[in-house]
């Protein structure tokens, strides 16, 4: 899974158009990005990548790039750019 697919996965979880999301996007700019949306992200990365994100990691994320970094640190198949 590459960065683009990862962004698409986040968009699917948050239920927004993938085109609206970029690496530099700020999570706080999306009112749809609720605590429930975070749970969906946790479940999708677990299901599709076998990556378990912790609540602490999630709280440290302010941009899409931050989440990509968190996931990439746990799975070899996500190249960083």
């Amino acid at each position, binding site marked *: 899974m590459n960065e683009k697919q990862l962004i698409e996965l986040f968009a699917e979880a948050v239920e927004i158009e993938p085109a609206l999301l970029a690496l530099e996007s700020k999570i706080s700019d999306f009112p749809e990005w609720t605590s429930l949306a975070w*749970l969906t992200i946790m*479940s999708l990365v*677990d299901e599709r990548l076998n990556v378990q*994100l*912790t*609540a602490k990691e999630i709280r440290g994320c302010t941009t899409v790039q931050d989440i990509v970094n968190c996931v990439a640190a746990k799975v070899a198949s996500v190249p960083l750019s």
Partner: protein
Amino acid sequence: MDARLAGISFHLPDRVVTNEQLQAENPDWDMARIESKTGIKLRHIAAEQETASDLAFLAAQKLLDGMQADRSGIDCLMLCTQSPDYFLPTTACLLQDRLGLPTRCAAFDFNQGCSGYVYGLYLAKALVSAGMAANVLLLTAETYSKFIHPRDRSVRVLFGDGASASLIHAGSGGARIGNCRLGTDGKGFRNLIVPAGAARLPCTSETKRESADENGCVRTEENLYMDGQELFAFTLARIPALVRDTLAETGLTIDDVDWFVFHQANAFMNEHLRARMRIPKEKAPLCMQEVGNTVSSTIPITLHRNASRVSPGQKVLLVGFGVGYSWGACLLDWNPLVLA
């Protein structure tokens, strides 16, 4: 000596709080979305003066009457609750008297939440198979609603009050209690907690002060607090391994089990867990739409509601997990039991 689960009943308080009511009360909550994620439409809530022991009493009466049980033969009563009537005495003592159980009956509370029903079966099996008790009445009862701030969306939409009663005996009828496995990780204790009110943090004017978190959920330190993301991460990390290990100890795999009765946390989490373990949908019933998460009573309620579909000889795995963190699984070899 085998220990068998001979009968189950449950009781829900009369008062109901629907999603429509919550929506009317809290226009800023997106109840349609919450319902689609949680799978919960309504929950039963105890009346102001109604306690966990009142609910447990009614569940127990229903069971003992339905089984036409000889009350004088009950030699152990255990109540699982985190919302007791008093700090002391143990609520089970009040129930021994109220239920007309013999004075030679042992009675105690144990404080567990979502793992509590599995804990109860584990304890009852140990007592019965050791010959220490012949008829164990296991009660679960919770009124989390009394801990919940009405403006705390994160918990108010999920939890409902309720109670269950089960009889475990050394007799021949009912489902045989097989392998049990329990686990604990107290590092997670802060993630589902009522912080104030006991000895560590007594109630003061400070603990009564309301504050809103970053999601707009309002609570005080005397209220229930739940970190949903932490609980979700804990569940994903622990429960698939718990299921695998409990089965492996008896040489079984997931395919060998006919029914999985999971603690009913919320539909989103339960469905994710189920799919993650590749358990077919029809083997893992959901039962929260009209009850919510009743903590230690979700497993017996789900078992009661689905027991008529279970055939003799089938294997049923019960799986509880949550507050503590505490978790447990227990295998049943099915034989028909009394549903009161």
